[in-house]
Structure formats: C-alpha cells, structure tokens
C-alpha cells in the first residue's frame, strides 16, 4: 500500500511536467493545426536555462522564472520567424519543427556538451507519513503545475480573451470576421505554450538530471497525452496527463520499469485507433476554407 501511494506520487510529479507540455501542444495545435514536435526541445532549453542560472548562483525560483521568459521569447521569435510561414500548410510546420529539434538539440550539445546535467534539489525535506516517504520537491512540482494549469484553464474558459481564443479554434475565418486578431492570438498561444514548456523544463531538472535528448521522450509523452485528451481539448489533456502519470508510476512500482516509455506510445496508438478524436473529443485541426 505504501509503495502504491509513493509510486502514484512519483508518477504524478512526472505527469505534471508532461501535462505542461501537453497543454502547450494542444493549444498550438488547436489554433494552427501545427504539430510542434520541437515543443520538447523548448522544455529542454528551459531545463538548460535553469541549470545555467542555478550554476551561476541564482536561486531556483528566479531561475525557473528566467527559464519561462527565455523560452517564451524563443517561442515568439520562432513563431514570427518560421511557423508563421507554415500556417497555410500545417504539415510543413510539422516538418519545420522536426528540423528545429535537431538544431536546438545540437546547439545545446555544441555549447554545453551532451552530458547529464543536474541541479541541487531546491527542496530537500522528505516527509514520512505512515511509512510513506514523500519528497517535498515532488509535491512542489505537482502544486505549481496544478496552479498554473488551473490559471490557464480559467483564463481560457472564463476571460473574454479565452473566449476569443476558443472562437478562433472553432473557426479561424469566422473569428477573424468578428474582429478577433487571429494572427495575434496565434503568436500569443505560441508564447504561452513556450512559457509553460520553459516552466516544465525548470521543474523537470528539479526532479531528475536531464540531457539534451530529454526533450524527445518528453514531447512524445506530451503528445500522447494531448492526443488521448483530444487535440485542442484542454480538459482532456489534463485528465489524460493524470492517467498516464498513474499508469507509469504503477508500472515502475511493480517491476515493469523498462517498459514505462512504451506505455505512452502504446496508449496513444490505441486511442488513435479506436477514438481518433481522443477520449474527450478534440478538433482535427483548424477548419480552413
């Protein structure tokens, strides 16, 4: 029982980071139809920024803020410089993102080599509760993610900007006719998604050492989650993130740890086969005339 709880907690903390990616992926896809595989590299860059900042004596909390800002600026530049030109052909956007994966990974390797990078844990307390050992750093990651995702959720569902965003996802052209500056929203979503990936990167390196190749596996899981939830569906992404986290945690706890990476791909394939729009329904991309 104790192991069960502990593994669920471990799973949830990783799931938090995956959910942060999934939210960005799902928002960007919903609005532009672009499957941005480089999102995982955004996360990795976030980790690297955090690592560099902490290594230079900046506190962890400032470092993750810095990571968010740097990655958001990067997302802005890439949207304006590259993805903007692929809006009419989202498949090209996808291929561009594959190119970006290689470029970003190897730029990081070029400057900071391919070795594992880690930071000292920002929180060292471990609570013991009835035989369950709970690392406070994991709880912190779960809480930060929950708060940020909840904020994003409220912003998207309640604010007038969120309503305009959802209208643009529903039908880009009609939304534009209603006076919604769709292009600006696309940039905004890229920036928001990138900032979330930057945050995810900062939190990830607090949990585990990372390498320049971490982004690749994380983005696949983020995608698996976004797909399961239904691309473009924010709630779906969060629920699917929880499911994946628990499944991974349990499988690691019961001795199938070498297969953990396979679950996300397997689940994704199954969901796509039997419910191509995800478990909770999503869009199949922006409608384009």
């Amino acid at each position, binding site marked *: 029982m104790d192991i069960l709880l502990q593994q669920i907690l471990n799973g949830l903390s990783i799931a938090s980071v995956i959910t942060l990616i999934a939210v960005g992926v799902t928002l960007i896809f919903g609005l532009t*139809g672009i*499957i941005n595989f480089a999102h995982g590299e955004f996360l990795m860059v976030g980790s690297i920024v955090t690592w560099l900042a902490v290594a230079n004596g900046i506190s962890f909390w400032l470092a993750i803020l810095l990571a968010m800002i740097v990655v958001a600026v990067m997302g802005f530049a890439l949207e304006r410089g*590259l993805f903007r*030109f*692929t809006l*009419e*052909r*989202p*498949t*090209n956007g*996808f*291929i*561009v993102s*594959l*190119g*970006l*994966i*290689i*470029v970003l*990974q*190897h*730029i990081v*390797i*070029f400057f900071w080599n391919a070795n594992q990078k880690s930071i000292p844990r920002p929180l060292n307390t471990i609570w013991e509760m009835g035989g369950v050992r709970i690392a406070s750093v994991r709880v912190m990651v779960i809480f930060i993610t929950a708060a940020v995702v909840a904020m994003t959720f409220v912003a998207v569902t309640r604010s007038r900007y969120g309503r305009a965003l959802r209208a643009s996802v529903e039908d880009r052209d009609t939304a534009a006719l209603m006076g919604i500056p769709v292009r600006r929203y696309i940039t905004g979503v890229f920036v928001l998604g990138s900032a979330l990936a930057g945050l995810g990167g900062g939190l990830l390196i607090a949990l585990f050492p990372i390498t320049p190749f971490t982004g*690749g596996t994380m983005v*696949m899981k983020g*995608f*698996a989650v976004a*797909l399961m939830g239904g691309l473009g569906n924010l709630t779906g992404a969060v629920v699917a993130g929880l499911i994946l986290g628990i499944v991974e945690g349990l499988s690691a706890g019961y001795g199938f740890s*070498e*297969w953990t*990476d*396979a679950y996300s*791909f*397997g689940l*994704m*394939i199954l969901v*796509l*086969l039997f419910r*191509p729009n995800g478990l909770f329904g999503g869009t*199949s*991309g*922006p*409608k*384009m005339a």
Partner: protein
Amino acid sequence: MPASHSFRSLLPVLILLVLLALVPLLSPSNRFVSLAISAGINVIALYGLSVLFGQTGILSMGHAALVGIGAYTAAILARDFNIGFWLSIPLAGIMAAIVAALIGIPSLRVSGHHFVIMTFAFGQLLAIILTNGGDYTGAASGLDVQQPVALFGLSIDVLTHYYLTVVFFVALSAIASWAIINSRYGRTLRAIRENEKLAASLGINVGRHKIGAFIVSGVFAGVSGVLLAYFLRHISPSQFSSFPSIYLALMVMIGGARLLLGPLAGGILVAFLPELLNLDPVQSRILYGVCLIAVILLLPNGLIAGIIAGWHKMFDRRAAQPSEPAVEREGK
C-alpha cells in the same frame, strides 16, 4: 507534374550510377568508400520513401524502424538459421513488408497528421521492444553479424566490392521506383495524392492503395536494412529510433521526393556535405536541421526541383510552370 512516361527520366539516374560504379578505379580512400556505401544504403530506403511520400503524399516518420526490421531479420536469420546475405535480402524485404502492413493497416485508419504521429510512435515503440528483447535481440548493445558475403565464390567483403554491390542495389531500387511511378499503379497513387475524395469517388480504394504504398516502401527499407547490417556488422536499437527516421525524411525532402534523381541527390548530398565543409558531427547536424527548415520554407519541392525551376526561370522565360508544393494541405 505528370511523370514522364518515357525512359528519359530513368536515363540520367542510370548514367550517374554507372559513373559512380567507376569511382573505385580512381582508388578513393577507404573513408570515402565507406561514406559512399552508407549513402547508397540510405538511398535504397529513400527510393521507397519517395514512392510513399512523393507519389502517394503520405509521410512516414518511423521509416528507420522498417530499416531496422530488415537489419534485425538479417542478423537473426544469420545467427539462428545460418542464412546468408543473398537469401536474407528477399526474406528481410518480406518481413519488413509484413511489419509495414501491421503498422499501416491500423495507422492509415487515421488521416493526415495523425498518421505521421502514428508512424513516429511505432518507430519509437520498435526501438523500445528491441532494447527490451533480451538475448534474442541483443538488448541495448545489439547484435553482431558474422556471416561472410560472397558472390559466385568471390568474397565481396572487400570494401570496393561491397560498394559495387550497393550501387547495384541502388540501381535496382531506382528502376523499381521508376517502374512503379510509370505504371497504372503509380498513376493511381498520384490521383490519391492530388485529391483523395475525388480518387475515392472514381472507385479507387484509397485505404488499400495507401497501405499498399506503405508496404512497397517497407520492402525497400527491409532490403536497405540487410545491406546496412552486413556493412556495419553490428546493429543496435538506437540506429533505428527517432533521429535516423528524421534523417531519412530530411534526405528525401532535401533531394525532393517526386523526381527520380531526388533520393539519389538527397542521400549523397547529406552524406558528403559535412565532409566537404569539414564539419564535426554536431555542427553538421545543426546544418542538416537548418537545411531541412530552409528547404521546406523556400523550396518545398526539394533542392533538385528547385534548381530545375530556377534554371527554367533564368534561361527559359516561358517555361514558368507553376511549381506545386510537395506537401499538400491537410486538415480541411
């Protein structure tokens, strides 16, 4: 761009290959020949991808996995059944085709975008399975291939002999690809690429033909895998995971998927560019990524088609045939 129904499109490729076959006469360095061999092995898989992507318009981001199936089939056949190089080639081709069918039948139920992700996920899944396969697949460290390769009693393990064998298989796959492009079947595939709904309304079984194209491309990949296994003599799961798949897609994009010269140009260019510019592997990968992005945004038909279009623009004012993007718009 209607595929020319004549022999003319195949001729430059064959001439180029004959010239390439003469290269060993110049006594090039071993390193050069090795690079050329790995380029050639990629080109074989690229001809398969060009049928899939160039003709049918479906992109596979897990193609290295099918190459891996070919390579592992060859290695396991050699280890457990003492089956050598020549018999491995058809068997690995069949095996890769079967796996392509297993991946393709469910994957092609989902359209466009999702298919690309499915192929990527299957590719990753395969690398995980190979890694967790224990002694049978040699786990993360992979398998050795020890069988000698001989033709009519003549050993072709010598580097230049192996090079000629690869050139022969490249020629074979170019001819096969040409034959497919210029057949009724190729026309059907292009009809699907141009307008899936229209093709379906004309009575074409779109799903079955897409799966067919995927299986055909799988055969090429399987054969290329055997050549790879016997060239490297050691294979491991990481050679067939996500990066090699992206790398193959990059080559086919840079060369251009629709022209017969495209895969050959893409494979050779990507293999030799770092050597020419004297880049280390990290720098050359950055360059590949930048090239991929630049080609997609600036020359969506690939480099060769771009050069041809530029040539026409400069020397032939009226020949401005509107170039069509290689990647169709999806998600309607």
